[in-house]
């Protein structure tokens, strides 16, 4: 497909702005290099971007069981609410008296999230999960610093963790201690006990973990860390398995980040914007970023917590994303927030049950909202890799599961159907999975060659990294 720069002609333009109705003023020093932007008419422009959109597969186009990403349905009412002019046309520095609706929305979202997570305070400022992690770790850092407990420089992270966990820890100035997982994919208690000490700032954990299992020792785990003087950080990526059913706060966690764009149904936008709200227990509230929202007699106002770590970004977070998440929580409410989690778990177990006689599961027992298959044996026997199966799925109109994660499982495919998929959709996907397994045995080359029905076929990533072409050359 042509680039937008390769279309139109030099004199083409849209007629968007009027003539100047005041005397024209010019800058003294101006740019000397031309600004080579596209020169297209509206017809070409919309055709181009519409065509680009058509070369994308979204969750609205079909099943998207991308493990650990919780690609649930994005309700349309949420979009309508976020698009209300009363929200979109408001300047962030307007006086509090003129933005009571915005503050109410933030406050409302915070209250829901507190109750769901079992935390005492929430900030909506972080723009994404990774920034949420960074924020949470800064809270831990501020806590220890404030207590002058300055030796606590180490964050313990299981080897099954998301890559963001160690990266965030480093950004927050910590040293990362990786601990191996036990054979069941859960935390190795002995390894944890060996790792904690007076230098422990905290532990970062996902529960259910990245192999889809709820760690039954969770209370013991958090106790070990607390006993050593550390704090417990909950990576909320997998909250969809347990929201409203069991609360991170009740598991002993002190701080948590949430991906509103996963668990709370806001769309991912091809990579963002997301929202990485952070919740914490009372002991960390005074360190939360400012400005935060307070309510008094039905009036809302901003304030800055006493020992705030400061601002995480301009203004108050990805506000429109928060409006979507709030709308979602108000819709589901008390009864259906846990029902969503329960059905996410049911759906994952159903798919696992249907595939378990054919594909090797990385771990036994029931899973939570996702499960991990290992294609190591298939790969050994047929040469067909997890990547090949994934590409075969593309030709069947299904977005592949997460590939090669967690790192502790060989030839991993991590499947997360979410609660918004029907049995019918999952049955179809299972049929495709089973068909591809047969194909791996009967005609492996076909899978090495897949995909063939997509706008482009397998791309040369190595070449792309070796000779980076990162912009159009005029």
């Amino acid at each position: 497909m042509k680039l937008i720069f390769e279309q139109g002609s030099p004199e083409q333009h849209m007629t968007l702005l009027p003539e100047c109705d005041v005397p024209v003023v010019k800058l003294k020093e101006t740019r000397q290099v031309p600004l080579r932007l596209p020169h297209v008419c509206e017809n070409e422009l919309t055709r181009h971007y519409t065509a680009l959109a058509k070369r994308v597969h979204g969750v609205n186009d079909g099943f998207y069981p991308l493990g650990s990403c919780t690609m649930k349905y994005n309700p349309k009412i949420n979009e309508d609410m976020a698009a209300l002019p009363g929200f979109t046309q408001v300047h962030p520095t307007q006086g509090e008296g003129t933005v009571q609706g915005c503050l109410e929305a933030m406050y409302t979202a915070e209250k829901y999230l507190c109750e769901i997570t079992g935390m005492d305070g929430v900030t909506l400022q972080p723009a994404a999960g990774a920034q949420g992690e960074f924020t949470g770790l800064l809270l831990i850092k501020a806590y220890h610093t404030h207590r002058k407990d300055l030796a606590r420089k180490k964050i313990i992270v299981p080897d099954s963790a998301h890559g963001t966990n160690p990266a965030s820890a480093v950004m927050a100035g910590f040293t990362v201690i990786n601990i191996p997982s036990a054979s069941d994919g859960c935390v190795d208690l002995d390894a944890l006990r060996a790792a904690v000490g007076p230098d422990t700032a905290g532990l970062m954990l996902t529960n259910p973990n990245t192999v889809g299992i709820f760690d039954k020792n969770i209370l013991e785990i958090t106790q070990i860390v607390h006993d050593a003087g550390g704090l417990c950080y909950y990576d909320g990526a997998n909250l969809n398995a347990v929201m409203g059913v069991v609360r991170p706060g009740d598991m002993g966690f002190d701080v948590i980040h949430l991906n509103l764009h996963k668990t709370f149904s806001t769309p991912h936008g091809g990579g963002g914007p997301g929202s990485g709200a952070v919740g914490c227990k009372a002991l960390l509230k005074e360190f939360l970023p400012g400005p935060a929202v307070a309510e008094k007699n039905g009036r809302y106002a901003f304030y800055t917590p006493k020992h705030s770590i400061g601002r995480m970004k301009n203004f108050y977070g990805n506000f429109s994303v928060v409006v979507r998440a709030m709308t979602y929580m108000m819709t589901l409410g008390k009864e259906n927030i846990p029902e969503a989690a329960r059905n996410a778990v049911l759906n994952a177990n159903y798919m696992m049950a249907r595939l378990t006689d054919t594909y090797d599961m990385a771990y036994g027992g029931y899973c939570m909202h996702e499960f991990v298959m290992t294609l190591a044996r298939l790969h050994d026997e047929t040469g067909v890799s997890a990547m090949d199966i994934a590409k075969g799925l593309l030709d069947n109109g299904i977005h592949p599961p997460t590939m090669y994660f967690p790192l502790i499982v060989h030839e991993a495919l991590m499947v997360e159907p979410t609660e918004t998929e029907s049995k019918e959709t999952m049955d179809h996907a299972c049929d495709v999975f089973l068909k591809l397994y047969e194909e791996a045995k009967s005609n492996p080359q076909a899978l090495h060659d897949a995909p063939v029905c997509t706008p482009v076929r397998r791309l040369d990533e190595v070449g792309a990294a070796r000779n980076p072409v990162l912009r159009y050359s005029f």
Partner: protein
Amino acid sequence: MGTYVPNSPAVQKEMLDVIGAKSIDELYGNVPKKMLVKNLDLPAGMSELEVRGAVTAMAEKNTVFKTCLRGAGAYRHFIPSVVKSVSSREELVTAYTPYQAEISQGILQSIFEYQTMICELTGMAVSNASVYDGATAAAEAVTMCRDRRHTKAYISATVQPSVIETVKTYCFGSDTELVVVPAKDGRTDLKALKEMLGADAACLILQQPNYYGLMEDAGQAGEIVHAAGAKFVLSVNPIACALMKTPAEYGADVAVGDGQPLGLDLAFGGPYLGFMAATKEMMRHLPGRIVGQTHDVDGNVGYVLTLTAREQHIRREKASSNICSNQALCAFMAGVYMSAMGEEGMRQAATLSMSKAHYLAKAMEKELGWKLKYKGEFFHEFVTEVDDKTAKKALKALEKNGILGGLSVEGGLLWCVTEVVSRAELDRAVAILKEVC
């Protein structure tokens, strides 16, 4: 009562039978019983009709000003209809990060185009796929410039205050010392800067035009910074970039800024978009995602996420940043905006904004006797010297008339005018002020 679960209890039962479980509760067997939530203290769910009513009522509690004479980091520019029209396509909105390149060419190509436009706007060699906003872009830039020998970051006092605060928070994380360079007459005190910079200086962050709307002598600042062996990070307003010298021309090593003026709603502060561009030398220090052009097995041109060896999911604790989700859809919108405007449209938006701001400044001086607080050349924002009492009265009078006035800053009001405000609206605002002040 609302739900998006499609499977009815009967179907759920069928599925449990296949699983071989008696109930969903059984699937939660690993969870210690006592931990299970007994009573979630939340309101009951609602039907779509009720939710629509409740949330709309919230939105209506906000005041939408018909005329906006305020910027200070968030700008109400004209947004062509095409921007929302094409960016609301569901495929795009509901897709994840383009890990599966074969079915994500639309997102990938749009980012490649966006990267090209940011390079053109800034004059820099490479751009990433966006970060959260202008403030975090500045903060990430510090990380790019820091190394073992260069551990101290400098930021001008004339940078937007919340950007300074954000950079400070990030520096708290990385244990970087952050030094604020003082201002003189509303602009960075370059003499002081020269004296402050030591061998441990990693970078200076400067904003152009600065928080008060003034044009900095960014060229000289860059020379001073480079002479000290540090990097020069320039935060720019992307609309102003259509007219002023590019960051590259000013000698910047990293150009950052907030992309909100490029077709994004004010939306009470977000989602916006942080752009980051750098010299070729600093390419591999850029945080976040970058899209590259390549070929598929049939030789067709295609696009992929590239240089991923910098990123957290590969490098874990050795990554250049922890960022993964960025503001992809906002970058898409900015790309559409720049395509629609073109060079001519961008220049026009910038010229109209600047000219109208100057018109208002003059009218305020002439009609109200309000003097400019600073003397330097300004773009589309300026500070008028007024006492607190007058400022309050002025803002109140404007508010009553549907006009959002300037922002209170030390010693005055910070005004902004963009192309969406007509001369008649400006005259009306001045007339209202004349009556009360």
